[in-house]
């Protein structure tokens, strides 16, 4: 794998390539997703990229009826809420992401602890293209 700086720009590029990547401290083994350039456990200076398996469980969520303009553009509104959540990965770290494959109008049917699998949402074209990290129930 080519050298990429341990930052959000690289993290986003990896997402675009459908890889969920973090950084691991070579000294103490602490794992960070999204990546950190500095280990905040031991302040070791050498970190390496590691890829996550993309499996985890839902630990918190919300169904959002009033979203920012970029979500409204995707068609979400008061009648069609989308779901954002916190997922704890098998590797033991948590990430925030969009949650797909669940009904934002029926929050009572969405359960904490649900096993989820990563999925990548590619939106926009060319210079405006971006990839959203998302998870869906297994």
């Amino acid at each position, binding site marked *: 794998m080519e050298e990429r700086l341990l930052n959000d720009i690289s993290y986003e590029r990896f997402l675009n390539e459908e890889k969920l990547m973090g950084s691991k401290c070579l000294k103490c083994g602490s794992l960070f997703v999204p990546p950190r350039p500095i280990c905040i456990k031991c302040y070791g200076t050498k970190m390496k990229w590691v890829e996550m398996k993309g499996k985890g469980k839902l630990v*918190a969520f*919300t*169904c*959002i009826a*009033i979203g920012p303009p970029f979500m409204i553009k995707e068609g979400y509104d008061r009648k069609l809420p*989308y779901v954002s959540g916190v997922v704890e990965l098998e590797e033991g770290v948590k990430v925030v992401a969009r949650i797909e494959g669940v009904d934002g109008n029926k929050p009572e049917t969405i359960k904490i602890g649900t096993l989820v699998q990563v999925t990548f949402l590619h939106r926009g074209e060319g210079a405006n293209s971006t990839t959203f990290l998302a998870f869906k129930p297994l």
Partner: protein
Amino acid sequence: MRGRRKLGRGIAMVGAGMSKFGVFRDKDSKYLFAEAFQEMLSTVDKGVDPKDIDAIYLGNFTNDFFVRQGHWGPIISDLLGFTAKPATRTEGACASSALAFREGVFAIASGFYDVVLVGGVEEMSKRSTEEVTQGLAMAASPYEAKSGFTFPGVFGAIAVAYFAKYGANREHLMNVTIKSHNNARLNPKAQFNVSIRDIMNQRIERAKKMGQPVPKWRDEKEFLSDPQANPVVAWPMHLYDCCPISDGASCVLLVAEEIARDFTDNPLYVVGIGQGSGKALHAKEDLTYFEATRYAAQEAYELAGLKPADIQIAEVHDCFSIAEIIHIEDLGFFKPGEGYKAVAEGLTRLDGAKPINTSGGLKCKGHPVGATGTGQLVEIWKQLRGEAGERQVPIKDLRFGAAQSLGGTGGTSTFVILERR
């Protein structure tokens, strides 16, 4: 921590004022701050010559985005005729003026200045709800914003985690909302100075007058459970769990303790002051508390030599109903997981053992974000001096009051303890 912290010299608060909070199409930031300043001047018992004010610290989160104008320090300094004295803007999202207060305290404690004005202002209502949502999301972490999280969304997720851990539910959030409205009903400066019952009666009267079906809510909780009356914003945060979009300004006058009696025979003393920072949502070990608030509280209690039980009244940052429940736990007033029970038992009501948000809180008083931190201190000023009118708490020997401000989704938190001697 390396031993107890201390201030270089004592600080007193000798004046406090705020504009009315609300939605004002015809008032701009300068006008709002002028209102707050004029009221502050009127509260200094023995008067103050504005020419004696050495410096101003001004909290503002993002008028840059909301009204496309930055650099508010000198604008307000010029408004008040303070130039060429120093004006410094502080930014800590919704805790911006709480940081201004802290800088003012340090400026006097260092011995550099004797009289400092600290305050805040925000002008939000001239943008659409979607734009304000986007503007506020700038105070979240970039990962949260990209995942579609709005501010209500982050607190919605926190509420879901809190419910799962402690067995609370939406009804417990409603207790916070009903209490806030009951207090705000007695606060003429509040954006919504009506009780939930008042709102229900207004709706019923309107339906009757228009010949429409009359709603059959039996009590406040039935009203708050009605999706027509109280729609979801970000589950489980509904409209009445969320603070409004507001315009407003507030300020307080700080002076060195040794000159406080030149201004008033009834000053309040800044005995505790603390600030903390916190991680983004995904990096929190546990979603059900704010590490920044716990740290800020510890700093302030240590400086003051006080315990949570010593604090008799407090304003806390109820940007969302769930936040009030978590803050009263993080500040040590109630144990983790017990806050929602305390609210349900009425302990935090105006006539309870530990009145919380007697002003109506952010939910009802309004939340012009940059003005909120010092706005909370205006309420503690009134309560500790026995000037809160109809909403004066019935506690005898009122001595210690406190205010806690949260910036962003827990990135910044502050805690201030005031004493009346």
